[in-house]
């Protein structure tokens, strides 16, 4: 095992060395970094050119300059020496500094999108695998192919037009005409009926309920101007919480386990009580406080599960913990909605909340809630675009993996010994289907840092992709190398992690020592 890891790391280092030399030469050969100055008519022309030559060490030929750069870059490997030197970019800023800023921007942009895409994609993949060859399966398969074929810059422009400009116009006067409400209701009802599965009667029932619910809610929203003053309130949180409690118990323990259901429901009750207790505290919120509260909610739920106990204490704890966490999330959502009017009427936002470019509104002032709402409204469009694009491969992959597992002999054995369908799917099939998915998830997390060059360009986010493109267009090797090194190292490390995880998760696979 250790030999294997060591061998992989040595190979990776050699590959990295070769590739980085190649990338450096390519970037340096791609043009003339002094080009913009050569056309400069001012008398300081020569001086400026000399300054830049000095800054970027242009008097050294590129094949040798690489080794100067390499000498600085190697120092990054010395721990705690703080002597990391990746050179300076064309504006004289150290690359390490620029990278730090870009990394934060990129991670805020890409993390949420990747996590959501993985969650939604895996869920869809499993559902379509369980309902193979149903209308839902065909529909999702078609959508997966369609999303897979979409150029992201095209999607991004469409989202800007309809998601941002259209929605902002709608918010100016948030009234939904009756016909539109009915239309959306019919659409949602039809989709639910298709997705529900089962016999025709059941599908129609589910569809009709969804139709009635959506239409009534939309009319209510329109009448009360909910979109201007959104909020959930304790009643909605309680109702939704009970729904969550049932759903979580169904998936994690099965509804037959009454103790688990009880503990989940008690957790919802505790959440509703905490809703009132926490309101004054939340007004002073910081990011750290939210994290601590999330942990407290999970612990609280697990505590409730522990006290209620039952024949399987672990299941009760799990059900109550997850439920409690989700109820806490609802409370957080409600608090964000309470802050919405103040954000909406902020002098910088002026009633057009969904932004099309950038990562935050310039010079915005406000408390924690307003500032984080500001980041959300800036992140929502690029996140949507990225989710759409990357959803397809997760869905298809999960579906294929799940189908393969569902046809295995041990699944038939599990059914034959009389386990419930929930146990078969959640415990025997799902866990094993996750093994190959863990591999591609590791790859994708490794690729996170590279950012999304095109998405960053379209939405003017100054992340890693921007740094990279900017470096290329200015024939500036140092930032390009900085980005490349970060991306390549994370990609290789996560590649290794993926392989190790595979052999750890699947005992049939052994790494070659």
């Amino acid at each position, binding site marked *: 095992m250790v030999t294997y890891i060591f061998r992989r790391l040595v190979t990776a280092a050699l590959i990295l060395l070769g590739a980085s030399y190649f990338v450096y030469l390519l970037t340096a050969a791609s043009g003339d970094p002094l080009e913009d100055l050569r056309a400069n008519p001012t008398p300081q022309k020569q001086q400026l050119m000399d300054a830049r030559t000095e800054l970027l060490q242009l008097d050294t030929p590129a094949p040798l300059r690489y080794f100067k750069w390499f000498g600085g870059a190697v120092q990054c490997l010395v721990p705690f020496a703080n002597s990391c030197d990746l050179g300076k970019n064309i504006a004289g800023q150290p690359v390490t500094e620029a990278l730090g800023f870009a990394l934060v921007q990129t991670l805020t942009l890409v993390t949420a999108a990747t996590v959501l895409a993985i969650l939604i994609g895996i869920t869809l993949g499993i559902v379509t695998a369980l309902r193979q060859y149903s209308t839902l399966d065909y529909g999702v398969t078609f959508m997966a192919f369609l999303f897979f074929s979409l150029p992201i810059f095209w999607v991004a422009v469409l989202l800007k037009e309809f998601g941002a400009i259209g929605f902002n116009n709608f918010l100016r006067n948030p009234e939904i005409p009756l016909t539109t409400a009915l239309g959306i209701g019919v659409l949602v009802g039809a989709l639910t009926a298709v997705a529900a599965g089962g016999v025709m009667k059941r599908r129609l029932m589910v569809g009709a309920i969804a139709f009635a619910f959506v239409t009534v809610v939309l009319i209510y929203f329109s009448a009360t101007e909910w979109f201007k003053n959104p909020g959930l309130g304790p009643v909605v949180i309680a109702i939704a919480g009970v729904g969550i409690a049932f759903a979580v118990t169904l998936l994690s323990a099965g509804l037959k386990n009454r103790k688990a259901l009880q503990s989940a429901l008690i957790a919802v009750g505790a959440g509703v009580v905490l809703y009132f207790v926490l309101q004054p505290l939340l007004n002073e919120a910081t990011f750290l406080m939210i994290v601590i509260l999330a942990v407290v909610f999970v612990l609280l739920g697990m505590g409730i599960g522990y006290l209620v106990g039952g024949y399987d204490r672990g299941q009760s704890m799990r059900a109550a913990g997850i439920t409690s966490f989700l109820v806490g999330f609802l409370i957080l959502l409600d608090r964000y909605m309470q802050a919405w009017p103040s954000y909406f009427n902020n002098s910088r936002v002026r009633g057009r909340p969904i932004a099309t470019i950038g990562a935050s509104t310039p010079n915005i002032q406000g408390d924690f809630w307003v500032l984080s709402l500001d980041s959300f409204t800036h992140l929502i469009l690029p996140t949507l675009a990225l989710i759409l694009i990357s959803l397809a491969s997760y869905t298809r992959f999960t579906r294929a*993996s799940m189908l393969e597992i569902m046809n295995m002999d041990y699944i038939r054995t599990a059914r034959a010994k009389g386990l419930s369908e929930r146990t078969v799917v959640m415990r025997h099939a799902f866990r094993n289907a996750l093994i190959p998915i863990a591999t*591609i998830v590791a790859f994708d997390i490794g690729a996170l840092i590279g950012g999304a060059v095109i998405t960053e360009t379209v939405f003017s986010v100054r992340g890693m992709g921007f740094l990279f493109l900017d470096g290329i267009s200015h024939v500036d090797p140092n930032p390009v190398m900085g980005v490349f090194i970060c991306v390549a190292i994370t990609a290789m490390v996560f590649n290794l992690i993926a392989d190790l995880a595979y052999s750890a998760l699947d005992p049939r696979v052994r790494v070659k020592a």
Partner: protein
Amino acid sequence: MAEDGSRKPAAAGIEPVLEAKGLSQGQIVRKRFLGHSGAIIGLVVFAFIFVLAFTSVGYLGIPGWWKYTHEQVSPLVNDGVPTLSLWPLAWGEHPFGQDRIGRDLFAMTMRGAQQSITIMIVIGLIAGLIGVVVGAISGYFRGWAEAILMRVTDVIIIIPALLLAAVMAQLAGRRDQGSWFASFTSTNGVLALGIFLGLISWVALARLMRGEFLSLREREFVDAARISGASNARIIFKHILPNAVGVLIVNVTLTMSAAILTETALSYLGVGVKAPDTSLGLLISQNQQAFATRPWLFWYPGMFIVLICLSINFIGDGLRDAFDPRQKKFNAKKAIDHGGPAVQSSAVTALDGPDHGESRNDSPGTDGFRPGGPADGTQGK
């Protein structure tokens, strides 16, 4: 509910006669492919776009039947609004409308589709060729050849395509140097881009082919061929390659559909096809600011990208199903019609998942090709 998919007797919907009839492998594959409705629709759509794009505005100096070319400026008709209407079906003067200075969008879109299809085919051919050669040599001969070739593959796979394309674009832009490269790219910009992208997108394919060769070379028929005195070249081309051709064709198709998106993305970023020539990505990039005033300039090129890519993906999906030897043609409707008795026979097909092409690799190691994904992570996003 959940039982539906898994317990459904796979055997009932299979056409069991197919293999029993003594058809050749090619015939079986053709039959399966023709029975895949998604793939057939994809094929028809792609053929239609191909013919439309290559006949309408002419290609390689041969004039087409459409009255405008992509560079020709004509007076604005009705402020450039598209004249195409579905009911009553009418073509009109400028079916897709005109841009701000009066160029015909239909001609430009067709020209762009030509470019995208050309690049796609060039990439597919080059990537397929290099991928097969590298994969075959490293998988068949092993040893030093494999070590060197696979390390080269590793190096190329982590170099971002964007950088290479940008470097090429910059080099091509320097016409003053008069090098053969600059003169070639300035006259054949699209071809050069295709060749260049092809030279870097073979890596995933080479890894896959290596995997295929690694497993096939251990099989008995290869031993038999070797004992009967076949040369290495004969074993590779006559015995192993025909058995790996399914994986090859499917993945070349998928590489091609990813190539379309790569090309449009590069053109969008300004390092692919450059004005005065045009491509679908470039058209979108030029017209995205005009979305509010002239949305059609944005809709039609985008629709064509999606249509081409989607049809290629469906063809690839159909090919994958057709070539997979474990795959049985399954028809859910037939299975329901046939009803009960087939349940007992499902043991035969216990291993049949419908999407084997996407199933996992059994060996870890670096062969984790993501099916259908772009060869490099950056381009798709």
